[in-house]
């Protein structure tokens, strides 16, 4: 499929091509380690045989000479060299994996940042985040399991063939023209089956996982009705499918291991017999004959783990396929112009989440002449849903929204959506320092200014009391922040900026009336000249009489409410 090819190209570009220099170096180190291993055994075999032959001649009273020092140091060199190059290979390739991962993360983040809001909503879902992590981890294995081992095996094979050619063309031809195609055939067959099987297996596991999640959400109802077991029959059926696939995967793997071992044993015997023949014909000496055979033995170490390593291809492909659309979101057109947002009009008619609109059409209008509005309503009347509507990038049919009199695409073109501040009920805290939390996305904010906004939201004393003040780490692995504090830090963050439209959804959460009134007073200067939409469950005393109010409460006699 051409789609798959584009995807493969994308990942190869990101994971391989962009790191090609270092990748070659990593491959070279892997190759070197393998070659040292082969050379160690080959030279050792040569050495033992040579000493035995010379020793036998000497014992028989003949005369012969063998230089022991050079081969001895060669053996020591290869032994040490192998250790060192293995270490270097591991360090280097892991470094490379981490670099790949960093690159993927940045790409993924940028891609996700282009997703529409509605799609990003799932980022709040723990399972979605879990799976994103799992998928990212699966990409780790690409270099260490899928790229380096087979590549180094092939190179070793070719080099060994070349080495054979020095001594016997027949041997080299047999090794390269019979051995290599057989190897490639076994691997190709294995990969073909294994990628598909492991891909399906990942998909099945994922499906079962999703079914489990939905059914657990209905656990209480299903249990009481005695229906859970019946509902989960679908999961049980999936388990049977998974079981079958897992069996086939393991059979595949065992079979290809068997074939590789037979191939390896066969090659050892083939090379040994040819070496014997060559020695008998006097093409080369006995020690050389042994030196030709033993490296083939050492190949076993590279062949044996191959099926297990390649088996991760299907899982990686599954992960890559899921990450691809996220990482490659098209860039939205860049905004142009420096027009200021001056009017906001929202019409709502029969929108389920704001129940009052089922009863009567709702109209919300902000402009430079009427810049402020209080939206009030008991909890569950749809205040947050209403606030969400103003910043969402897709609108339900029930809503009509105009900014500066224009529809969505036009105002996005003009960059108006960058002039909105939404103080929502979600925590909105970055796991970072207080300073970063306040000034993320801004440069050139003075220390004094940061303290000033903290004072406005009455967090100054709290910030002073923190172990490292502005540089204190906030979040799970640092200073815990309460819901109310988080809301005020979010507010302070906006006080450093100049949005045209400010939407404050329950900004005084967790505060008493007096404190709320003080903060409200303190931010008045900042609110001057902006469009402000304030959403509260009821009108507070401190709110100036001039504020118009739109109530989302229902005329309880006629219509349904919603929560």
């Amino acid at each position, binding site marked *: 499929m051409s789609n798959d090819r584009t995807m493969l190209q994308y990942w190869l570009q990101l994971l391989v091509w962009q790191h090609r220099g270092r990748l070659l170096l990593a491959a070279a180190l892997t190759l070197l380690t393998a070659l040292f291993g082969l050379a160690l055994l080959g030279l*050792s075999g040569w050495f*033992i045989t040579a000493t035995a032959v010379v020793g036998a001649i000497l014992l028989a009273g003949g005369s012969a000479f063998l230089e022991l020092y050079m081969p001895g140091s060669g053996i020591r060199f290869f032994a040490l060299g192998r250790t060192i190059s293995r270490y270097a290979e591991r360090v280097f390739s892991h470094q490379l994996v*981490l670099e790949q991962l960093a690159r993927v993360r940045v790409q993924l983040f940028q891609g996700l940042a282009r*997703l529409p809001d509605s799609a990003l909503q799932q980022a709040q879902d*723990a399972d979605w985040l879990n799976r994103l992590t799992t998928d990212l981890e699966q990409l780790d294995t690409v270099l260490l399991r899928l790229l380096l081992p087979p590549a180094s095996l092939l190179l070793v094979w070719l080099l060994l063939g070349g080495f054979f050619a020095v001594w016997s063309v027949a041997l080299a031809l047999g090794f390269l023209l019979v051995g290599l195609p057989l190897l490639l055939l076994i691997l190709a067959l294995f990969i073909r089956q294994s990628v598909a099987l492991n891909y399906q297996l990942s998909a099945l596991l994922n499906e079962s996982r999703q079914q489990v999640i939905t059914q657990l959400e209905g*656990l*209480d109802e299903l249990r009481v*009705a005695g229906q859970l077991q019946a509902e989960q029959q679908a999961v049980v059926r999936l388990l049977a499918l998974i079981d079958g696939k897992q069996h086939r995967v393991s059979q595949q793997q065992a079979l290809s291991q068997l074939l590789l*071992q037979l191939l390896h044993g066969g090659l050892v015997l083939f090379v040994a017999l040819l070496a014997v023949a060559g020695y008998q014909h006097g093409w080369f000496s006995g020690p050389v004959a042994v030196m030709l055979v033993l490296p083939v033995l050492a190949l076993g170490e590279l062949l044996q783990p191959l099926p297990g390593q390649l088996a991760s291809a299907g899982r990686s492909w599954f992960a890559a396929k899921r990450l691809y659309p996220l990482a490659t979101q098209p860039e939205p057109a860049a905004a142009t112009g420096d027009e200021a947002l001056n009017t906001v009009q929202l019409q709502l008619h029969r929108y389920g989440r704001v*129940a009052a609109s089922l009863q009567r059409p709702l109209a919300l209008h902000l402009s430079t002449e009427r810049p402020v509005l209080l939206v009030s309503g008991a909890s569950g009347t749809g205040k947050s849903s209403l606030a969400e509507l103003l910043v969402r990038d897709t609108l339900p049919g029930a809503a009509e929204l105009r900014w500066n009199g224009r529809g969505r695409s036009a105002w996005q073109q003009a960059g108006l959506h960058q002039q909105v501040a939404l103080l929502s009920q979600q925590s909105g805290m970055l796991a970072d320092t207080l300073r970063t939390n306040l000034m993320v996305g801004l440069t050139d904010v003075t220390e004094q200014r940061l303290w000033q906004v903290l004072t406005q939201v009455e967090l100054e004393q709290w910030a002073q009391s923190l172990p490292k003040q502005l540089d204190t780490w906030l979040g799970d692995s640092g200073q815990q922040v309460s819901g109310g504090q988080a809301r005020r830090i979010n507010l302070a963050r906006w006080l450093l900026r100049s949005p045209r439209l400010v939407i404050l959804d329950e900004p005084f959460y967790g505060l008493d009336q007096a404190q709320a009134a003080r903060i409200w007073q303190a931010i008045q200067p900042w609110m001057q000249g902006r469009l402000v939409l304030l959403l509260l469950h009821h009108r507070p005393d401190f709110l100036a009489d001039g504020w118009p109010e739109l109530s989302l409460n229902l005329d309880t006699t006629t219509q349904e409410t919603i929560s």
Partner: protein
Amino acid sequence: MRGDAADVQAGKALLHAVIKQQRPLLTGAVLLGLLSTLGLIGQWLALAWLLGEVILPAERWQWSMAYPSVLLFLLALVVRAGAAWGQEYCASRASIAVRQSLRLQLLQLWWEGPAWRLGELSAADWASQWGDNIETMDGYVARYWSQQYLALLSPLLMLALIAWLNWLMALILLLAAPLIPLFMVLVGLGAEQINRRHQLERQRLAGHFLNRVKQLRLLRQLGAIAESSQQIARQSGRYRDLLMATLKVAFLSSAVLEFFASVAVASVAIYIGFVLFGAIDWGPAASISLFSGLTILLLAPEYFQPIRQFAQTYHDKAAALAAAMQLAPWLAKATEPDRSEPQPSDSRALQLTELVSAYPTQALRPPPVTLTVPEHHCLLLSGPSGSGKTTALKTLAGLIPAKAGAFHWPNKHDRMVYLPQQPWIKPGSWADNLRLYAPDASESDMMSVLEQLGLAPLLAEQTNGLATPLNPADTALSGGQLQRLMLARALLAPASVLLLDEPTARLDQQSKALVMAVLAQRKSCQWLLIASHDPAMQQLADHYWFFAATDAGTGLSEALV
């Protein structure tokens, strides 16, 4: 992360139990692994025999002299490859069976375990237990477990042959083997120490990316996307540096293995070479020939191979133990009998005897309640929100065990349906949901219930009628409409007991009237247990269970007939 000693103990017990289940297959894997080692020994022995005989023949060498060694080689190859195939087969069968059985145990837990505790883990957490956590058992069962024996036994087999050929070489190899784990432990400790030095920073860096993904909408609003992606690149770089600092030490442990394996081969080769040359005549030098020398040389790297494989699987065990520690407490609960199962009795009424309903973890005890609700009567649980109505309803539904006292459902009752305040919407169509408890409900059955509840006009608006998908995130249906739709699902069920939690909370007067009418009609054939703060419900009630909010938020309850 390290858990309590008890958690570790429980995790280990679980691992032990899963292995025990699959003992025959796993023992088979070990035995076949040993057989495969024997095959390998035979293979290299035959090769050394062939080469030794050709190069230093006792008499004039002929091809016919190669037959026995070639035959031995082929035989050994078949044994080795066949046994290895069998080993892999047994080990992976065991691993598949273990994962399958753990998943079935989880299903069992969800079916029968204590319902009130299952909510301690979110659905997403359960999904990770179900998916990734159970998958980590594969490495432990399929590889680690048999390898821990083979890492010991296979080298011993080879050592026995080497000792027979030359005891000095065997001694050297024997002494080298225990040094490896020793050095690996030392290196491991070093890595651990470096790891701990940057623990906090690493933890923060590791969580950085996900935190930023979580806050993407906010970052976009703040215009901080470009800055954040640069930060992600920087932090990933910093994370890499920290991780590499640990890995550079941790990899020394594999270097140690590599070093011993390489040096052993080198020293075996040099010693044997010098002996054969005649430069060394001490020790058991006389027993060395080209054949035995080659055999020892070929076996020396193989001697370390099982230990190496074991070292590679070592982290499989740590991962499996971590997973088992999370699973073990739950699977232990699956086997506990669920005390919340309602007791049947011979009487024809629901009887509450000194019943105290509260979560088992709750400290406060509301007063006990004694009540009898005869067949086709309605019990109303009323009181302000937060006073314990839902807890009591869940207790009667069998979802929470009674804190004290007991209640008895008559034998005759066959089935209950429970409708919580936030009903579960099954992913699927309207019909899929309506047929959840009544698979045989016909289209006209469904239509008539929908009509009774005033939902017929809404259905008419749907593009595909009853086959229209019902999306929980759907904005087209209001909370009240969904509420009534789920009530319709409950009413279609062939159940003798209906437990309804605030069935009218989100309804307007008109819909409420419809619901009340339907419930009144249902009283003639069903027990109705309704938790509601709606005074209108009193029209239906035959029995009351009052709850009063206390300062601590836990209910005081009182029964009236």
